[in-house]
């Protein structure tokens, strides 16, 4: 699953630390999410979407073909 988290975060001028604090997770979790190494839980995805005032689908892009392999 791809995501635009880093792009959206940088657009808003928010640091990883600040986003991590707001989400109640570690900075490493935000870093892993941005690098695509870790997929968030539904709860964290919704929290991120609400934080940025957008939809989950605007941040996380589900690629069916890649996941079906």
């Amino acid at each position, binding site marked *: 699953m791809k995501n635009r988290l880093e792009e959206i975060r940088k657009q808003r001028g928010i640091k990883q630390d600040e986003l991590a604090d707001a989400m*109640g*997770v*570690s900075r*490493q*979790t935000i870093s*892993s999410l941005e690098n695509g190494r*870790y997929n*968030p839980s539904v*709860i*964290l995805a919704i929290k991120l979407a609400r934080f940025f005032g957008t939809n989950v689908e605007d941040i996380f892009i589900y690629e069916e073909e890649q996941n079906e392999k």
Partner: protein
Amino acid sequence: MKSNRLFYISIIEIAAGVIIDLLAFSGIVADSDVITGIGSGILAVGLVQLLRLVRIEHNPELKKYVETASKDERYAFISMKAKEAAFAVYIMLVGVLCIGWMLLGYREEGMLAAMSICLLAFLYAVLFRVLARKY
């Protein structure tokens, strides 16, 4: 809340370690060397945990880090993955040991290893059914 619970557990561990060591030193219990080892082990675990808690309590940055880590979903995910891998590795290692011991003629050790695998497989099956009902 969690650190309070850990604090009480460490105190209980220290007290238990001291009592076991005293019993061993007084010669009331048989095989005092083994009992002393167990007592000292429990005492050391309790002391290390208590020192860790005191260190966390006196360091706000470390306290924040530990609190975040305890709630962090990625850490929980990694912990679950590590347990999953440890389970698989353990089964394989004990399986190899079991066969090895049996081939070398250590029948009792081999049987113990085989029973350990059976117990784990049984626990897995039971817990799977329990959790399948829950979720």
